[in-house]
C-alpha cells in the first residue's frame, strides 16, 4: 500500500517537474501555470463540482479497462463502447418520454446495453472464431466512430444545427442537478460500489481475478473460463457505455460530433497507471479530471495551450509505470539489507 502511494506521488512529481522544465524552456512561468491549473479545477465550489462531473467518464472507462485487464480480456474498446452507449441513450431520449423517475434509469440501462452490445460483438467473435479481442475491439472503435458520425449526420440530424448533431433529448431524461453538483457523480459512485463489491467480495469476482492471473489454474480449479470471459466483456462494455450515456444526460443533452474524443484512451491510461486496482483507478481518475478541467484555466491565465495536458498525462503514465517496477526492486533490496543487519547485530 505504502509502496503504491510513494511510487504514484513520486511519479507525478517527476512528470510535473519535467513538464515545468519544458514550459520554462519555452519561456512560460511553470509555477504560475500549475497554480492556475489547480486553482481553476479545485479552487472554489463551482470548479470542484465541474472537476467531479468531468471525472465521471474517466473513472467509468477506467474501471472498465481495469476490470477487463485484471480478469484477462484485453478490452481496448472503451472509446467505441462509450460512443455506442452515448448513441443509445440519445436515441432513447429523443423518442421516448416517461416521467423522470422512470426515464433516467431507462436511459442509463439503454446506455449500458449499447456499450455491452458493442463489446459483446468482440466477445462473440472471440468465442466463435477465436479472433483476438485485442485487435477486434480496436477496429470496432473505428467502426463505431464512423457509425455514430453517420447516425448524427443523417437519421438523427438536428435540422436547425450547422454541424452534425442530434436535437436535445427530452427534458425528463436530463440528470437532476443539486446546486452546482450534477447527479451523474452519484450514478458513478453507485456503479463503482456495485462493481467493487462484485469484484472483491463475490465468488464471481474471485474467479475473474484468478483467471486474470492464471487462466490454466482457474480452469483446472473448475471455473467456466468461457462464461467468465463473456460476463467480463459484457460488464466492461456496459461500464464504458454507461460513461457515454452519463456524459449525454449530464452535459450537452445531445450527441455532438467528437463527443468521445476527449475520453478516447483515457480509460486505458488510467487503468495502466492504477495497475488495474479499482480504488487506485478512482483516485487517478479524479487526478486526471483535475488536470483536464484545469487545462482551460491554465490556457486562459498563462497562455500555455491546453493540449499540454495531453503530453503531461502520457508522461505521467510512462514515468509512474516505469518507476513502480524500479522502486519495487529498490525497496525490496533495502528491506533485505536492513533485515540482514538486524540478524547480524
Amino acid at each position, binding site marked *: 500500500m505504502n509502496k503504491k502511494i510513494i511510487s504514484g506521488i513520486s511519479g507525478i512529481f517527476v512528470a510535473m517537474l519535467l513538464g515545468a522544465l519544458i514550459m520554462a524552456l519555452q519561456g512560460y512561468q511553470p509555477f504560475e501555470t500549475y497554480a492556475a491549473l489547480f486553482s481553476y479545477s479545485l479552487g472554489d465550489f463551482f470548479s470542484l463540482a465541474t472537476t467531479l462531473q468531468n471525472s465521471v467518464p474517466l473513472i467509468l472507462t477506467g474501471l472498465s479497462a481495469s476490470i477487463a485487464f485484471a480478469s484477462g480480456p484485453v478490452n481496448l474498446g472503451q472509446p467505441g463502447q462509450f460512443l455506442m452507449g452515448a448513441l443509445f441513450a440519445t436515441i432513447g431520449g429523443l423518442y421516448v418520454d416517461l416521467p423522470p423517475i422512470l426515464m433516467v434509469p431507462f436511459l442509463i440501462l439503454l446506455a449500458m446495453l449499447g456499450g455491452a452490445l458493442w463489446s459483446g460483438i468482440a466477445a462473440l467473435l472471440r468465442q466463435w472464431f477465436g479472433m483476438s479481442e485485442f485487435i477486434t475491439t480496436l*477496429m470496432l472503435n*473505428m467502426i463505431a466512430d464512423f457509425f455514430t458520425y453517420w447516425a448524427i449526420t443523417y437519421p438523427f440530424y438536428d435540422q436547425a444545427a450547422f454541424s452534425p448533431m442530434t436535437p436535445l433529448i427530452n427534458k425528463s431524461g436530463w440528470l437532476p442537478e443539486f446546486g452546482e453538483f450534477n447527479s451523474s457523480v452519484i450514478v458513478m459512485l453507485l456503479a463503482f460500489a456495485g462493481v467493487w463489491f462484485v469484484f472483491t467480495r463475490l465468488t464471481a469476482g474471485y474467479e475473474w481475478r484468478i483467471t486474470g492471473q492464471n487462466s490454466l489454474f482457474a480452469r483446472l480449479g473448475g471455473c467456466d473460463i468461457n462464461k467468465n470471459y463473456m460476463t467480463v466483456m459484457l460488464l466492461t462494455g456496459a461500464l464504458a457505455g454507461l460513461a457515454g450515456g452519463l456524459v449525454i444526460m449530464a452535459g450537452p443533452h445531445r450527441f455532438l460530433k467528437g463527443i468521445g474524443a476527449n475520453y478516447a484512451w483515457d480509460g486505458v491510461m488510467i487503468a495502466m497507471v492504477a495497475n488495474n486496482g479499482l480504488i487506485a483507478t478512482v483516485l487517478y481518475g479524479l487526478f486526471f479530471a483535475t488536470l483536464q478541467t484545469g487545462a482551460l484555466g491554465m490556457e486562459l491565465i498563462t497562455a500555455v495551450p491546453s493540449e499540454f495536458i495531453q503530453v503531461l498525462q502520457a508522461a505521467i503514465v510512462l514515468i509512474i509505470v516505469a518507476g513502480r517496477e524500479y522502486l519495487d526492486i529498490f525497496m525490496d533490496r533495502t528491506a533485505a539489507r536492513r533485515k540482514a543487519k538486524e540478524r547480524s547485530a
Partner: protein
Amino acid sequence: MKILIGLINGMLTGATPILLAALGGTLTYYAGIFNIAMEGMMLGGAFFGVLGSYYFQSWEMGILAAIIGSLIMAIIFIFFSVVLKTDEFVTGIGLNLFALGATTYMLRQIFQVKGAFSGPGIVSIPAINIPFLKDIPILGEILSGQNLIVYIALLATIAIVYLVFKTPFGLRLRAAGYNAACLDTSGVRTSRIRIWSLLLCGVLCGLAGAYLSLGYVTLFSENMSAGRGWISLAAIILVNGSPWGIAIISLLFGFSDGFGLLLQQYIPSQFASMAPYVATLVALYVYSVREKKKKA
C-alpha cells in the same frame, strides 16, 4: 478501364504507409518485442515531415526530418522498454498517446493552428516518371508516375527480406525472438539487437509518416495516422511476420481503401470510410478459422 487504373493506383497509395510501418514492425516482431508503437512513430514522422519540408522548403529535408521525428519516438520506446524494462504493452500505449498529445501541442505552438496545418509552403514529395516504362499503354500509368515513397516501399520490402533471411544480423534478429537466453549465451547481446530492430522500425515508420503528410496529402492534421499503425500490426500477426505476406496483405488493405473511395458515390461516406477496418476484421476472421483448422 479508367476506373480499374484508378482503383489500382488507389490501392498502391493506400497500401504504402501500411506496408512501410508493417515492415518496421516485423523487424521488432522477429526480435521478440511486442511493439504496438508504430502508430505513434508514424504520427511523429508525419508531423516532423511537414515541419522539415516547411522550414527548409525542400522535400528531402522533409523526409529526413520525418525519419528523425520517428526515431525520437523509437528512442523513447527503447529507453522505457529495453533499458528500464517497462511492460512493452504499457510503453506502446503510453508512447502512442504521447505522440498524439505532443504533435497536437506542437501543431498549436509552432504553426499556431488547431486541427490541421496546410499551406503552400509545404513542399510535397514528387512523383517519379520512369523513362520507357511510362510509354507502355495502360501498364505505364500504373508502373510509372507513382510517388517516390511508393518505390522506396517496394525496395524496402526486398531489402527487409534480404536482411532478415540472408544476413548474420537477420539470423541474430530471429534468434533474439526465438530464444533470447540462447543468443545471450552465444555472446551476442539480445538487448543490442532489439535496440537496432527498434531503430530500423523507427526509420521505416518515419518514411510511412512522411508519405502520409507529404505524399498522400500535403498537410498535417491531428491524429492523421488514424489507426494505420494498428492495421499494420494486424497485418504482421496475420502472416506471422513474413515480409512478402505483409506486402500482399497491405495491398488488400490498400484495395479496400481505394474501393471505399469508389463506393462513396453510392453510399454515405462514413460507411465507405469503414472499409479498411472491416477488411481487417475479415482478414482476421479468415486467419483465425485457418488456425483453428490447423489445430483440429
